[in-house]
């Protein structure tokens, strides 16, 4: 599999200075988490100072999507950068609560709040 950005799970990436804002899309489950993760990790080649993952267009995520984000988080931390998640719908937010990861990730309501 190629680590292409964009792909079926990452619609586009917008750069604001050294911040990468990633627009995820579609259900992130066992079928899509591998390409989701590959697209996210690929971004690190560009040395972002932080990555904002916008989940507005992700209706559903399961633990395999969460695993991709945990993987990204550990890589981002090693590189001294930061990771923020924004615009989680109620279902996706509840997944972070159930897995107690709502306190591990920095979660914001909007891009604005995450960037400022």
């Amino acid at each position, binding site marked *: 599999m190629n680590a292409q950005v964009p792909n079926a799970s990452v619609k586009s990436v917008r750069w604001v200075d050294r911040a990468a804002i990633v627009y995820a899309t579609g259900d992130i489950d066992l*079928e899509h988490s591998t390409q989701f993760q590959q697209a996210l990790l690929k971004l690190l080649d560009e040395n972002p100072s932080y990555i904002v993952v916008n989940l507005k267009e992700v209706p559903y995520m399961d*633990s395999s999507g969460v*695993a*991709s984000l*945990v993987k990204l988080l550990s890589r981002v931390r090693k590189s001294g950068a930061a990771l923020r998640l924004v615009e989680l719908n*109620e279902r996706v937010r509840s*997944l972070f609560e*159930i*897995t107690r990861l709502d306190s591990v990730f920095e979660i914001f309501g909007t891009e604005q709040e995450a960037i400022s």
Partner: protein
Amino acid sequence: MSAESFKPIFMRIASSPSQLAVVRAVIEKVCELTGFDAKAAGRIMLSVDEALTNVIRHAYDGADDQPIEVEVATITDSPARSLRICLRDYGRVADPATIKSRDLANVRPGGLGVHIITECMDQVTYTPAEGGGTLLTMVKKLPSEKETRKT
């Protein structure tokens, strides 16, 4: 439509990740028909999705062409009115003692599925199935009649 009049649904799918979305659609609709609100439905969908993911990854080692059977029914003739979802695979049977999630405090990718399932469902039992494979039974209490969304 009410949980009382809901008739059992049986499905046979292949152990392919692309089928998860179809089963989720079924579970979501059944939850709506049996009176769960959207939040509860989301937790039940998630549990079934995680359980199927585990069957694909662990019982079938990622093979995408093996059978998984799904049965959804309501149990309304006992005081504990509930929705019951059974998953049956024909794959490798695990020692029930090994079916458990990692310590949540130790953050690393993976190891969350079983925690999610036991957290979201009221009763979860893995039993070796007759003829090989595992039968996973997940039970969730139905919302009381007065909580039920009218349909």
